[in-house]
Structure formats: structure tokens, C-alpha cells
């Protein structure tokens, strides 16, 4: 485990390129070192398939969600934290991209703990453990837990139907 910036950068940079390849089939991504010694920085650069290099700001909401998660998950693969807490991060993704993301999360969750808050059925379907939060008419939250082996029937009252 190399200490310091260079070690983590080398590890994360490689994982980021793999993540972008998984989330943007045919696309390209890299972490570029920019700036100078006074103000060193790292820039995220992603070019989806068939498109030309553009500032990240011009990407769509779903594309930017994938780019941001690719960065976060690249770090999670190289230097995992004890757990990851993700609150409705997939809201902007279409069905295809959501499933690509979940394939990555599922793989990472074999070695790293994830806690995801969601309204999305496909996310519920890959859960190892499922919790339902409810609030009765008295304004008090309660929790119902289900330990699953990747089942989703119990989530049906809580979750949203989409296309």
C-alpha cells in the first residue's frame, strides 16, 4: 500500500477507467493531473461513446450521476471505507444505466458494506438486507426489517413503479 497521494492516485486512476468502461460501454474516462505545483489538481474527463470531449457540465443529469458514482466507487475499490451510505443516488438514471450501476454495486458489496436509500425496484431486488421505514399518523417513524436472500416482494407497498 503506497502511502500518500501518488499511491492512491495510481490505484484509483486505473479503477476509474474500469468503472467508466463498465458504466459507459464504448466510452472513455480518465483522471488527469492538471495545474501546477502551486495549485495542483485532478480533473475528471469522460467521453461517452460516439461523442466528443466536452466539459463535464454539458453532460446530462444521468451521465453526470454515473461519472460521480464511477469516481466514488473507484475509490471504494482502491481504498474502501467501512461502509458507503447512498441516499437516492440513482434518481436520474434510466433503466439500462441503473442496472449497469447495480451490477457494479453488487460486485463491490461482496467485500464492502453498502447502505442505499431508494425508491427503485431494481435496487431493492439486489438487496441482501431490506428495511422499510414507515410513519404513522402521529408523525413518528418506525422501521421494519427483513433479512433477505435477494428478494423484493416485501418491498412492494413502499416502492414506486416506473417504466
Amino acid at each position, binding site marked *: 500500500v503506497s502511502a*500518500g497521494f501518488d499511491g492512491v492516485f495510481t490505484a484509483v486512476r486505473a479503477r476509474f477507467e474500469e468503472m467508466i468502461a463498465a458504466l459507459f460501454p464504448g466510452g472513455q474516462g480518465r483522471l488527469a493531473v492538471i495545474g501546477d505545483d502551486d*495549485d495542483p*489538481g485532478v480533473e475528471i474527463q469522460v467521453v461517452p461513446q460516439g461523442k466528443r470531449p466536452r466539459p463535464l457540465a454539458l453532460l446530462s443529469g444521468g451521465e453526470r450521476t454515473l461519472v460521480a458514482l464511477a*469516481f466514488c466507487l473507484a475509490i471504494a475499490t482502491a481504498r474502501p471505507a467501512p461502509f458507503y*451510505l447512498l441516499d437516492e443516488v440513482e434518481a436520474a438514471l434510466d433503466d439500462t444505466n441503473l442496472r449497469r450501476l447495480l451490477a457494479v454495486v453488487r460486485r463491490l458489496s461482496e467485500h464492502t458494506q453498502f447502505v442505499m436509500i431508494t*425508491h427503485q425496484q431494481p435496487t431493492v431486488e439486489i438487496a*441482501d438486507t431490506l428495511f422499510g421505514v*414507515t410513519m404513522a399518523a402521529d408523525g413518528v*417513524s418506525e422501521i421494519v426489517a427483513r433479512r433477505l436472500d435477494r428478494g423484493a416482494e416485501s418491498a412492494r407497498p413502499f416502492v414506486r413503479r416506473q417504466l
Partner: protein
Amino acid sequence: MLRQIALRGFKSFAQATSLELGPGLNVIVGPNGSGKSNLAEAIVWAMGEQRAAKLRASGMSEVVFSGGAHRPPAGLAEVRLTLVDEEPADIGRPSEVEVVRRITRTGDAGYRLNGANCRLLDVHEALALRGLGPDALAVIRQGQVEAVCTSRPSDIRAMLEEAA
């Protein structure tokens, strides 16, 4: 991994509640306004978040359960997190960490680390050792997932340095 979250009096969680999390993927569902993000905020608050705005509040005592239709406000909010190492760490540190944070309606605050009273700084340090310091990339709040895309290159570099 985060093995347990126990909370009472924190936002909409008026009564003592606990979640036993598992390894792998834990998914939390529920209707709008039921308390899911409140639970996420309980975690970041217990980890030492000091900016009330990051908890959708204007002051820290706003996280205390402030009553429901037929239920009076709580006097205090308390959250306990239990972190365990899934594999034995080769760093000289305990394999289990328990963090407790509490605040009263009048703003009296307290922190405990493995049962002993401590300062907020001690909580920050114990968690930073595990990659869970303030602003950890490991926590992505509702509406914030795209933030990395609008971060400046120096900030992105700082995120990488923090992960080292």
C-alpha cells in the same frame, strides 16, 4: 462495517429504534417523508457533522424530535453507531468502535467513544482513522450525487488525498 444504528428522539424517530445492518447491500425503502433521510442524517450527525445546514436545520437542537399530532416533543436526541472491522486490521486500533452523540432541546451536547465521555474531536479522529472523517466521500446525501462533477480540480485532489 456499520453493525448497528440505535437512535431515539432524533428527528422523526421519537421512540428508541435500532437497525442491525448486515454485510453487503442494505437497502432502505419507504414513502416520501417517512424518515429515510432522517436516518441517514442520524448517521452523519453521530459521525460528528457540525454544520446544521447539512442536516437541513438552522440550529443543531432542531434535530430533536419536536412532536407529532398527538405526541409531545422529546427532551433529547441520541444516536449510537457501532462500527466493527470485518477483517482484523493490522493497524493498532480496537476492532470495534462505538460512538454516541446526544443533544438536548436546550442545546447541551455530549459525545462518548467506547463508553467514555470525549470531545467531538476525539470522535472525528477515531473515524478519520477509518476513512470516515467529515466530508467522507463514503456518504452521498440526497440530491448531492452530482457534486463531484462540479468540484474544482483542487477539491478532487483533496478527496483523493483523504482516501489515502
